[in-house]
């Protein structure tokens, strides 16, 4: 018997009972659709964080923050452990190989800013003038402060777009004088819109001022909240991070067996921290979707078993007119295979559609993972074969005489 005619017989068997075929297909369809959406959205979320870190040139840098914990984002100078200093930065600059530059960050949250009778609360970042060369901080209008402002502890500020809007509305903030905790600062620049940081903070709601000004004139504190160490060449980042860790361990006289009072992080670790939870969720949901696919497989098997017992007489007749066992086996396997393949295909189509929709709604890049999709369809095919074989074997094993009796 030709395979073509077997396929035709199988398709005829399927179109014969459309409702049953539809429900068989649905079981697989839902599983494959869920898998496609979950994997694609999960991949998209990861891609989004990576793109963000890429635009912030995060992969070429080592970050040092005070405290040993796994805190996310940037701390506030008045609440973090006062362990990180400018001297640490100098030591890193001179002792660690491949270090290009070190930017100092002294940030404080919940600072009140006033302009006239307008006021807002935001985060103040005291940064060294080299900060924009390490972390892209483009200025839309005006300019960033330089070494001169740093050394003279000048009271100048660069505003994030959201902060500027909160204080000035549509008016031009440049050259205006604002008060940061009552200290007057001149606005010299407006930052370009940056959006959210990889950690989720709003980079448009902040004020950047020279670090020396922040330390001496505003906070009256010398400890830092972050060091950003620029490394020449990504391949040296890991080694440099190790070296920074050793150096600070010695400099801070950490007793043996005691935890460090600082943390050294590189972008790849950050990526793990930032995407770790979403990856766990993706994995978990993926397992649920795979289970639903398995359930779909059982549905296929059950309906096929019912179909075989209902069609016992048909099987007997086919055997009587010359169908061999393998013809019957093939017919029923192909029926199950065609159903799962169609379910898989429609599931992928709907899943890709759902993933694109989700990425649009969430504003994430669409990460249609073709390997995952191929895997899902392959998995659907396996489900069809595995769960189709048993009913098909049952059908093929029927003795023609008994089958004809029905």
């Amino acid at each position, binding site marked *: *018997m030709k395979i073509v005619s077997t396929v035709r017989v199988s398709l005829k068997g399927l179109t014969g009972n459309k409702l049953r075929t539809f429900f068989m297909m649905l079981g697989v369809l839902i599983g494959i659709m869920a898998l496609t959406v979950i994997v694609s959205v999960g991949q998209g979320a990861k891609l989004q964080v990576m793109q963000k870190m890429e635009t912030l040139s995060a992969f070429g840098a080592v970050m040092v923050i005070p405290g040993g914990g796994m805190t996310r984002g940037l701390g506030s100078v008045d609440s973090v452990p006062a362990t990180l200093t400018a001297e640490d930065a100098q030591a890193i600059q001179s002792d660690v190989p491949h270090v290009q530059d070190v930017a100092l960050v002294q940030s404080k949250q919940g600072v009140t800013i006033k302009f006239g009778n307008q006021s807002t609360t935001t985060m103040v970042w005291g940064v060294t003038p080299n900060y924009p060369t390490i972390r892209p901080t483009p200025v839309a209008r005006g300019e960033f402060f330089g070494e001169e402002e740093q050394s003279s502890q000048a009271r100048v500020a660069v505003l994030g777009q959201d902060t500027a809007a909160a204080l000035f509305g549509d008016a031009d903030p440049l050259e205006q004088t604002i008060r940061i905790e009552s200290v007057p600062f001149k606005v010299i620049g407006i930052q370009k819109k940056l959006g959210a940081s990889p950690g989720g903070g709003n980079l448009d709601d902040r004020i950047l001022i020279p670090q020396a000004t922040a330390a001496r004139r505003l906070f009256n504190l010398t400890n830092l909240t972050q060091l950003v160490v620029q490394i020449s060449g990504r391949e040296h980042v890991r080694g440099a991070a190790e070296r920074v860790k050793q150096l600070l361990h010695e400099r801070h006289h950490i007793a043996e067996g005691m935890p460090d009072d600082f943390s050294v992080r590189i972008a790849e670790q950050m990526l793990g921290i930032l995407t770790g939870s979403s990856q766990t969720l993706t994995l978990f949901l993926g397992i649920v979707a795979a289970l639903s696919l398995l359930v779909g497989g059982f549905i296929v098997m059950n309906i096929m078993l019912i179909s075989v017992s209902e069609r016992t007489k048909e099987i007997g007749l086919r055997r009587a007119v010359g169908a061999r066992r393998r013809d019957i086996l093939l017919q029923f396997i192909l029926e199950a295979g065609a159903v799962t393949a169609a379910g898989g295909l429609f599931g992928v189509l709907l899943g890709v559609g759902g993933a694109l929709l989700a990425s649009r709604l969430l504003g994430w890049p669409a990460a249609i993972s073709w390997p995952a999709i191929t895997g899902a369809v392959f998995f659907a095919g396996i489900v069809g074969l595995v769960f189709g074989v048993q009913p098909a074997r049952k059908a093929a094993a029927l003795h023609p005489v008994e089958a004809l009796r029905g």
Partner: protein
Amino acid sequence: MIQMDGICKTYRVGDVEVAALRGISLHIQKGEFVAIMGPSGCGKSTLMNLLGCLDTPGEGSYLLDGQEVAGLDDDALSAIRNRKIGFVFQSFNLLPRATALENVELPLIYRDEGGIKARAAAALASVGLADRTHHKPTELSGGQQQRVATARALVTNPAILMADEPTGNLDTKASEEIMALFHALHRQGRTIVLVTHEPDIARYAERTIHLKDGRVVWESRPEEVAAGAGAGGRA
């Protein structure tokens, strides 16, 4: 055409062995129209299954068209059923969702041959249903359904036509129609084996083989069947 010698068939029912056939020997010539008769439980269905190669004998030899059937494997039996035997069943056994034409095509799809549609249409025409090719079985009368089934049996041009109570589900008029069709086929030279328990139907055959308790008890000609049945003796 058919040469059976010392055929025995035993079934196991639980721990008990039931002998359905106890040494059947019979000979059917090419072109003969033979009926097999007997009360229920006499083994005529078992004999029919063996003759039709749906089952294999436990003992004995069965030569069909010069080929020994006993001891053949399942695939070989399937091939013989496809090539040499055409079945007509009591309950028609048509695929309910397929058209008359598709039902007749069925045996041909288990061959690697072309021209299936034309041959099926020709077979339907030969039983007088050329105008019913695209009807579903439910749209046909009982007699028409059995004629479709007969066309399905004939489409492979088999050596033997096996009919198991072909009129069992039909009224008198339709029964006569079907038997007239069989009679005509016989006149065209078909070899026909008919299983029935109705003397009226057996009368269409040239020769009737009477079974009882798994043995051939006597053979008769049409006029003797009626007489024997009328005398109440099937001894």
